[in-house]
């Protein structure tokens, strides 16, 4: 997360921050049906949309998990009053299925300002619910 080449956090005390969120998948499906493209494009990046819509049957749960991740990140990073575009918090998926977070723009700047050094994301879904946990390591 460092914006410079030197680790300015070296020697500083560190702390963990956590955020979690739970989303009802059927409610996300309702939002997509009700608001369509406006809902999807307001919240998700092109990459997230491409992955989620690559399976029609899994689309709602993939969007739900990603929305949950964004909300969990907002909580972990204390960004709820920063006025951010949800697309500035992006979920990336590796070929092996592992998901990570990438921050952009104002969200990245706020995280750097807050001393965030690392972030870790875990997603899960079961039945009609999707959940996410974000853990951040921050320099005080």
């Amino acid at each position: 997360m460092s914006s410079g080449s030197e680790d300015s956090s070296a020697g500083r005390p560190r702390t963990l921050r956590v955020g979690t969120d739970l989303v009802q998948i059927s409610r996300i499906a309702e939002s997509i049906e009700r608001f369509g493209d406006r809902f999807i494009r307001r919240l998700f990046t092109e990459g997230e949309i491409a992955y989620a819509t690559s399976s029609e049957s899994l689309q709602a749960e993939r969007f739900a998990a990603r929305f949950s991740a964004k909300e969990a990140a907002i909580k972990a990073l204390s960004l709820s009053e920063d006025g951010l575009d949800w697309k500035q918090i992006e979920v990336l998926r590796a070929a092996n299925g592992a998901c990570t977070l990438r921050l952009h723009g104002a969200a990245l700047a706020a995280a750097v300002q807050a001393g965030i050094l690392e972030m870790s994301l875990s997603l899960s879904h079961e039945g009609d619910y999707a959940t996410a946990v974000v853990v951040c390591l921050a320099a005080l």
Partner: protein
Amino acid sequence: MSDLVSKIRNILKEHGRLSGDAATLDPHADLYQAGMTSHASVNVMLALEGEFDVEFPDAMLKRNVFSSIAAISAAVSELQAA
């Protein structure tokens, strides 16, 4: 009750997932405490944009902006005046 507030109450009734009646909720009552989830607040925002033909800029996508009927009313009025 103003037309603006009446329309906001209708949107909250349809999209806010509140545990109480949006028609009688105190204008300053905390909507999140009243049951509105973060996802529901997105639906409320999109419904407000459709109803009032406005667009919430990133700078207004804050928890506080959607925290009460009074706060939403102030935000919509600001967008309509812009």
